[in-house]
């Protein structure tokens, strides 16, 4: 194939363009018929090959040195350090004297052994022989058995198929069986012989073995650590060989750890991708208690009782990591895993340390440690609260209190009454002028107003384009007020008393329990106590400038007569008390605000607004014509109605004419998975993350319009709630928790329905404003002395009898349980069903029977008398009265509940637990234990001579005395004993 001739005949040879005068190429002599000198090529080849070698090595190194390997190496170092430390500790705590003694003994026995060497050798030899024989015999036996088994099968098969040679086979079987048994006997005998020889040998060497064993036990811990250390640190060569590139495919010590949770998927479009959490590749000490003080990423999880441990409610194997924390499951580098800093300092630190930067492509960045409670909700969504997640729950409380669900669809807030007052009777309560001033800036009137500000916000203040917002806002507000008044049908109320005493009223307001739901002005922060629930009712600040004293009287006397749907319960105020309260509340005034002039109404602005609204469904010319025909009143009514519909006032208020209107806000059911590209950040220089957007939105909802040129009807509409930073954080925490991340059924919260319903209900009624329920609540506490705190309702279901609880809930005023308490349990006028919801909730929480229980007490006379004795000796009556009278010399706040009521109020079993250890049921209670535990944690009675010091029996006796003798309860008939 060396032919070089171009295809002749195929094509014409192209003509040579220029005269072909052959001119020798430069330096041709030197090169011969070469283009390049070979040495020149060699040189280039050498250079490039060296480069290639270098680059290949570099490539392998670059590829090999992964971030996670570094952490794993570090962790091994840490483990070695710790093991060495442990070893040192173990060795220093070793009983050296004893160890030396053992060593001496060992030497002694050795010496003894040497004397009997001949004997030992003999036995040893014998033993070896026996072992050899045993081996042979045992093998014979096993082979014989194999033959027997196969013969057996043949025989059985022959019998079954009725073959003629069956008898012959039976004989053969017998023969093999005999042989097998012979061998068995032989080997068994040899076993016995070996055992005997061993025993004999033991006589000489047994002692030594024993000592050796003792020494081993002493050193067991040490040896274990030593082994561990050897495994951890098998030497540089082994480690580096195991983990060397290429060789690391076999059994490297540096390897990926992963948790694969059944049925847990990353919900990607098209397909669910199995979730593979590789976090533990670097977080190596996360589930081990001993790394609490280690640096990240090796630190132990801060709450192993609740997470990771296999005994905890969230074991690592079945929940993984990203279920709660989010982040990218398969990533094994700091950056890609989606770590998110919790603060600006941390962000800076990470940028420096890990070269961290925000990941633009990650849909689910990790929740920061501040936000981590937001990760709970995807599973814990059966009831309105997540256990132990205080910050998250307060966010949910805020949403309920401020009524975000009025405009936005939010999961868990379905079928809740609108938060604002009914406006269908507004003209009977307020004045139009007040409403106009109020709407302009509610917070100006009441610094803690829940009503948000719709006008004079960042996108409708000053003047933009052709719009003078001052004039326009005034016109809009006026139109709305006019509309409301035109539709309002005031309720006829009896004239209220106005002759109350404000000072006495103040006393009542401060003590009777108003502050469980209300506050006056800003709420003073208290350490360790949330007071969010004190925003449940509207703030009473400047109430006197808002409504008339007569109206207040009617309201506090019986709120339902004014507004049947109100959440406000009746506090059973007497007429005089009500008059005093009314006097006090109407004395709370803001004269400066009252004197402020009303904004003037500019007809041109009203025309502008009306025109703009008219234009939405008719042409310009038509709109102008319509406008011309309208009177000012018509304009106001028309504009008012359309504006209410634009701003969605009916989301929070009952507005006549808007009973069936649909909420106007964006649905927030999956707010936590909303694509960042769908969030309009406007021109704001804020971080482009969901969290940051929500926070900004909550701080100033309309700021995204700033810098935009928009017509008034295109502007953002969400009003400004003027949330504090803390509130913003809590609410946005809830929003980011609303993710679209399907978790398998087995992970989901299994809160019983009764508990979920109960929680929902007590949240609606704000029970926790006063009471501590499930360890949460008691918001009223900072306003009261500890002695005046409303009761903790821990174990309420277990504690109280259903009948008593039911009658109490239906009519709390009838029971005088704690006469010293100034706060009153209000009358909520619960329906039977509502009361049952609460009762069922408490029972379900404590897992006790409801509603049918036995309250009879099984006892006998002797026990009753012991109980009476103990009751006296323990001086229970020092604090507990047994009648309604207050003992002399005592003030009510020194007292405990009247024990006479116990038998019909308390469950007998509860009393037993309560008396044994009251702190366990109500931490901080003033009820002491009389049976403090000793060193071993066993309760001890101060009266060792009564009933043999049996604590359980003593407590039972006290209980029986309390129920039968003090209370006069029923005794259960006990078989075999006679009751009189």
């Amino acid at each position, binding site marked *: 194939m060396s032919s070089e001739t171009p295809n002749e005949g195929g094509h014409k040879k*192209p*003509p040579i*363009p*220029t*005269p*072909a*005068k*052959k*001119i020798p*190429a*430069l330096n*041709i002599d030197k090169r011969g*018929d*070469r*283009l*390049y000198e*070979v040495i020149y*090529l060699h040189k*280039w*080849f050498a250079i*490039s*090959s060296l*480069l*290639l070698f270098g*680059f*290949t090595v*570099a*490539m392998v190194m*670059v590829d090999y040195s992964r971030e996670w390997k570094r952490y794993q190496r570090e962790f091994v170092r840490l483990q070695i350090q710790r093991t060495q430390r442990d070893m040192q500790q173990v060795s220093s705590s070793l009983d050296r004297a004893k160890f030396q003694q053992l060593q001496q003994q060992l030497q002694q026995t050795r010496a003894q052994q040497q004397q009997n060497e001949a004997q030992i050798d003999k036995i040893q030899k014998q033993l070896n022989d026996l072992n050899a024989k045993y081996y042979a015999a045992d093998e014979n036996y096993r082979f014989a058995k194999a033959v027997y088994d196969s013969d057996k099968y043949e025989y059985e098969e022959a019998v079954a198929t009725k073959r003629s040679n069956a008898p012959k086979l039976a004989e053969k079987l017998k023969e093999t069986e005999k042989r097998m048994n012979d061998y068995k006997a032989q080997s068994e005998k040899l076993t016995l012989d070996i055992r005997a020889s061993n025993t004999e040998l033991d006589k000489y060497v047994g002692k030594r073995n024993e000592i050796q064993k003792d020494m081993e036990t002493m050193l067991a811990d040490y040896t274990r650590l030593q082994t561990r250390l050897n495994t951890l640190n098998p030497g540089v060569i082994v480690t580096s060989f195991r983990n060397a590139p290429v060789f690391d495919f076999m059994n490297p010590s540096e390897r990926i750890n992963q948790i694969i949770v059944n049925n847990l998927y990353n919900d*990607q*479009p*098209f397909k669910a*991708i199995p979730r593979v959490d590789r976090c533990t590749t670097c977080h190596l000490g996360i589930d081990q208690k001993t790394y609490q003080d280690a640096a990240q990423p090796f630190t132990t999880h801060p709450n192993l009782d609740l997470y990771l441990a296999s005994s905890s409610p969230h074991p690592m194997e079945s929940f993984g990591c990203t279920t709660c924390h989010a982040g990218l499951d398969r990533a094994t580098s700091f950056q890609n895993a989606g770590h998110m800093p919790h603060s600006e300092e941390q962000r800076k630190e990470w940028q420096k340390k890990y070269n961290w930067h925000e990941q633009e*492509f*990650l*849909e689910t960045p990790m929740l920061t440690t501040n936000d981590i409670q937001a990760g709970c909700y995807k599973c814990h969504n059966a009831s309105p609260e997540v256990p132990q997640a205080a910050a998250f729950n307060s966010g949910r409380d805020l949403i309920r209190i401020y009524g975000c669900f009025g405009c936005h669809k939010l999961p868990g807030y379905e079928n809740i009454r609108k938060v604002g007052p009914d406006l269908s009777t507004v003209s009977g309560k307020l004045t139009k002028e007040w409403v106009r001033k109020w709407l302009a800036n509610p917070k100006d009137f009441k610094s803690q107003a829940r009503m948000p500000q719709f006008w004079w916000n960042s996108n409708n203040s000053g003047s933009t384009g052709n719009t003078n917002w001052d004039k326009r806002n005034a016109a809009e507000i006026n139109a709305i007020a006019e509309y409301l008044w035109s539709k309002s049908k005031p309720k006829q109320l009896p004239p209220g008393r106005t002759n109350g005493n404000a000072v006495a009223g103040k006393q009542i307001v401060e003590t009777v329990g108003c502050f469980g739901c209300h506050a006056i002005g800003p709420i003073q922060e208290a350490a360790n106590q949330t007071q969010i629930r004190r925003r449940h009712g509207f703030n009473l600040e400047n109430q006197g400038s808002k409504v008339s004293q007569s109206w207040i009287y009617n309201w506090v006397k019986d709120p339902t007569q004014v507004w049947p749907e109100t959440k406000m319960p009746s506090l059973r105020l007497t007429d005089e008390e009500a008059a005093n309260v009314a006097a006090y509340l109407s004395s709370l005034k803001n004269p400066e605000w009252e004197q402020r002039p009303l904004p003037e109404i500019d007809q041109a602005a009203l025309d502008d607004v009306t025109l703009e609204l008219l234009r939405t469904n008719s042409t310009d010319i038509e709109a102008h014509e319509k406008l011309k025909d309208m009177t000012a009143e018509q304009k106001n009514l028309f504009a008012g109605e359309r504006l209410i519909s634009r701003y969605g006032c009916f989301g929070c208020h009952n507005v006549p004419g808007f009973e069936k209107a649909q909420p106007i806000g964006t649905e927030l059911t999956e707010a936590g998975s909303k*694509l960042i*590209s769908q969030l309009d950040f406007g021109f704001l220089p804020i971080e482009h993350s969901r969290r940051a957007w929500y926070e900004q939105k909550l701080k100033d909802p309309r700021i995204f319009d700033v810098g935009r040129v928009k017509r008034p009807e295109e502007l953002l509409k969400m009003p400004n709630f003027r949330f504090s930073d803390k509130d913003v954080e809590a609410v946005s925490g809830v929003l980011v928790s609303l993710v679209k991340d399907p978790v398998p059924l087995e992970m989901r919260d299994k809160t019983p329905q009764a508990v979920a319903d109960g929680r929902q209900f007590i949240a609606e009624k704000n029970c926790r404003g006063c009471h501590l329920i499930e360890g949460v609540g008691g918001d009223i506490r900072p306003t009261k002395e500890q002695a005046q705190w409303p009761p903790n309702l821990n174990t309420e279901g277990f504690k109280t009898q259903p009948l008593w609880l039911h009658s109490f809930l239906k009519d709390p005023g009838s029971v005088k349980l704690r006469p010293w308490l100034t706060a009153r349990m209000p009358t909520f006028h619960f329906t039977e069903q509502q009361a049952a919801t609460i009762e069922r909730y408490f029972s379900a929480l404590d897992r006790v029977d409801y509603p049918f229980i036995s309250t009879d007490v099984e006892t006998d006379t002797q026990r009753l008398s012991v109980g009476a004795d103990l009751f006296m000796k323990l001086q229970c009556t020092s604090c507990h009265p047994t009648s309604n009278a207050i003992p002399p010399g005592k003030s009510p706040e020194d007292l405990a509940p009247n024990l006479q009521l116990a038998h019909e109020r308390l469950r007998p079993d509860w009393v037993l637990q309560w008396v044994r250890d009251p702190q366990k049921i109500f931490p901080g209670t003033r009820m002491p234990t009389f049976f403090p535990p000793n060193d071993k944690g066993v309760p001890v009675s101060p009266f060792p001579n009564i009933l043999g010091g049996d604590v359980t029996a003593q407590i039972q006796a006290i209980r029986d005395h309390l129920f039968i003798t003090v209370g006069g309860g029923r005794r259960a008939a006990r078989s075999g004993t006679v009751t009189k």
Partner: protein
Amino acid sequence: MFIKDFINAITAPYFLITAAAILLLVSLKYPDKFYTSKSGAIVFACMFGFLGISVLDPNFRLIVTKADNVPIVGMLFLVPFFTWFALREAVRNDKRIAEGKPLVEQEETADKVLTWPDLVYTELICMVVLTVVLIGWSMALQAPLEEPANPSSSPNPSKAPWYFLGLQEMLVYFDPWLAGVVFPGLIIVGLMAIPYIDTNPKGNGYFTLRERRWEITTFLFGFLILWILLVILGTFLRGPNWNFFGPYEFWDIHKLEALVNVNLSEYIWVKGLGMGLPKNPIIREIFGFLVVLGYFLLIPPLLAKTWLKRFYQTLGPIRFHVMTFLLLAMTALPIKMVLRWLFNLKYIIGIPEYFFNI
């Protein structure tokens, strides 16, 4: 700041494409002025300087250092370099021809050397060096990987692979059936037809410009302006919503461009004749049809008679008509561009009912 704004302004497609085309044509007219070692040094020094200074700008850096764009930055240098190199060789050869000297290539033509080692060895070295380059590149730059595919959220801009961005850029001026199907088809056909249309026997196997001025000008216009430049434009200067963004401009998703393009039929019926558009699309678009048919059917014979008479004679009718068709198809793109820039012309023929828009 002012300089950046200025550059942002002059990189606008209409200016960039026009300027580049003019520059190319002028440089081909006076090759011995443009394609010298000195001018090459100046141009490349400027380009490197521009890149070096510009990467200080965050927006510029963002777009240039995007992993998948790095090869295109390389191409941005390689293509001009080889253009300059080839034409410099050509200029040299042309000079030699003029002086009656043998060509650069010819000096050695008759010499044959053994393939082993001269060719085989150099190939080996070349491979090794290339491997080194590839490995180095791979170590320095991680291949891009974005979030998992999600058909419900389209990134803005959604771009085709970079080598098809020329086609995507054509979508600005033509409908998909032309820009995405017909033009690519014609490009392939046209490329394949080149050896059969080009009967010029000269310039076979050596760099020359003077002997093949017509072919080279046409090819360079098509390759450099209508392909490479459009790829670069599509890569670096097209942002969200396929809007134009200068190299220092932030890709703001909210930037809007006014869509005020008008069909030829509206120009004639509504603006010219002052009457409504006829219902029947054929009648409505009759002028468009006339223009397009005229373009493809009348111009070739006209050219054959006048301007390209010489070609008609050497090539014969078949070759000539194939050539003029391909040339006219190619020039349709710049013509449509110019019409768009000057008159906001949307379609010459616009029958959206049948997806037939030109």
